[in-house]
């Protein structure tokens, strides 16, 4: 293993870049195959309306997926994001109901998200607790907390602000849903950060080899800490979009959401081992799964089949990826 990693480190970066490109190319081909298949078999699948609808639905997983991928790349996991969606909807809706201000509501939600991210990040990076345990714990705590506070009832959005409703209904130039626009802008910004900014490269370095990153003078703890904050804030944005879509703070919001996002991220070639993968890959993974589920619904298959097929595809994709990697390592 160490032999293989030194070999790839010695190879010119262009090769590495091409390797990454190939991974994403394969995903792109998959996405095109999925689109082509359903365009032929499902009526109205390849319409502007349906395409943009799916984009709007994908915006949740896309936004939260950015954070999930970044945390994965730093070599940790965050499975608390599903509960976080339900948690931050509470301050959002309550503050909006009280003040009739979207800005204050969103600020409140982001503040909550920030606190959650700080707690997760501190416990992982500075207290040194395994991130699976930490986020499993905060996942329980947040979901339980939401149940406690709401008594397992939804809190409706009484303010019904136009700007808030526009988050779910509104479309830019009447074509692209605003939620998708938000996701794409965030994706572009964080994609740029991961590939071209020093901090992004530090995340890859920390996830790739923590010891080397430390000896190179990076503050490993700070990098991981910030990754968890980024993840929580992005999940907060996803939670705000979800709350706008359902028009309330639902205590069951985001149940199993973390598993969907983790699945899409891994499908996109982001490794749980850290240091490997890209946001483009993650985005393609999300889109493949979303179009797949949309197309299967179009074929009239019950939702249960979508779960089964998604599960199979995730396992197959990761197995295929692993086989490819082993061959590339000269196995």
């Amino acid at each position, binding site marked *: 293993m160490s032999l293989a990693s030194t070999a790839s480190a010695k190879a010119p970066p262009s090769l590495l870049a091409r390797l990454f490109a190939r991974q994403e190319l394969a995903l792109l081909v998959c996405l095109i195959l999925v689109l082509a298949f359903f365009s032929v078999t499902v009526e109205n699948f390849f319409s502007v309306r349906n395409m943009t609808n799916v984009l709007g639905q994908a915006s949740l997983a896309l936004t939260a997926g950015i954070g999930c991928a970044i945390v994965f790349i730093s070599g940790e*996991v965050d499975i608390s994001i599903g509960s976080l969606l339900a948690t931050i909807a509470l301050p959002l809706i309550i503050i909006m109901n009280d003040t009739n201000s979207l800005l204050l509501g969103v600020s409140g939600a982001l503040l909550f998200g920030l606190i959650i991210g700080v707690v997760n990040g501190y*416990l992982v990076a500075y*207290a*040194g*607790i*395994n991130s*699976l*345990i*930490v986020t*499993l*714990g*905060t*996942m*329980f*705590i947040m*979901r*339980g*907390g939401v*149940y*406690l506070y709401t008594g*397992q009832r939804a809190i409706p959005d009484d303010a019904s602000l136009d700007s808030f409703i526009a988050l779910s209904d509104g479309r830019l130039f009447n074509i692209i849903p605003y939620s998708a626009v938000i996701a794409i802008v965030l994706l572009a910004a964080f994609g740029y950060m991961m590939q071209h900014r020093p901090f992004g490269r530090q995340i890859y370095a920390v996830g790739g080899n923590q*010891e080397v990153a430390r000896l190179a003078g990076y503050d490993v703890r700070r990098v991981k800490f910030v990754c968890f904050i980024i993840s929580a804030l992005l999940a907060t944005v996803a939670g705000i979009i979800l709350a706008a879509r359902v028009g309330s703070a639902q205590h069951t919001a985001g149940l199993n959401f973390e*598993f969907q996002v*983790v*699945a899409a991220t*891994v499908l996109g070639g982001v490794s*749980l*081992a850290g240091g490997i993968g890209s946001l483009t890959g993650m985005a393609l993974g999300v889109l493949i799964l979303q179009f797949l589920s949309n197309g299967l619904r179009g074929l009239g298959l*019950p*939702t*249960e*089949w*979508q*779960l*089964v097929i*998604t*599960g*199979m595809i*995730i*396992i197959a994709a*990761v*197995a295929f990826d*692993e*086989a490819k990697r*082993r061959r590339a390592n000269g196995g």
Partner: protein
Amino acid sequence: MSELTHTSAQKRFIGGQLLGSSQLVLGAILAVLCIAISIAAPQFYSEANIIAILRQCALVLIVASGMTMLIITAEVDLSVGASLAFVGCIGMAVLNSTHSLALGMLAALAFAGGVGLFNGLVVTRLRVNSLIATIGTMMMLQGGVYLFTREAVQNHNQLVSFTDLGAGYVGAVPVPVIIAALIFVVAYVTLRFTTLGRYLYAVGANEKAVRLSGLRSERLKLLAFIVTGLCVGVAGMILSSLMNAGQPTAGRGFELTVIAAVILGGTSLLGGRGSLFGTLLGVLVLKVIDNGIIILGWNQDLQMVVPGIVIILATYLDIIRNKANVR
């Protein structure tokens, strides 16, 4: 660099020695909890309540016994909750059509063992990370159980032996508790006193070394997956007996409870470290907390919040103690 590996080796060594004391802390937590709850609510120590606690522990302990073995080999199985529900439905369906507890049980074990085999093959042959592989299986099972049955499979023939499986007693002890105790003892002896058990630890601690010394590490991991699956089979039948039906919605979040209990018991997610006795204490602590919340008349939603805090806190205390000992 050599200094670094030296200290980490030292940490591991001292960590190994501390296993006993880590369980001591957990035992102390359990004792304090029991005393505190019984002061606030004397009925905690009634026979009926203790039996109720034990019965609730049984299901978790059965699956946690297998899961402890699996996590010791440095793998994990998130599909046990979904599998639990599916197994209950299948077992009940077979029971209804054959009127035979043995055949129902066999079907349940075969199915759950098959799920374990599938997980194990995907992880060991296809080299898929077990977290991802079992999330995939979880999705397939969650979808599959609804394709199998949209509503609960009702118990049509009311076999006494089947009802006894969940609700029966031998003397004063509920049958599920006896089954759990048997499985626990077998697993404990296997892990503690047999070569196989030591191999499982070795695979989790250093898979490469195990492979180089001529053992088939993949087979050991595969075995741990299958054992976990079989445990789910037993638990699924008991659950469907308790509910008198196979519920496709049963087992939501069960995997997290089981894993929480195992981790709380001091078993490391990195593999190679942990014990079944710790798991037993972990299960007891979680279930005593659950019971305490009900007995004290607190809001039942606290049953999610408190375990979350306990898992994080227990792991943190473990780290602090290890650090203190290294200094």
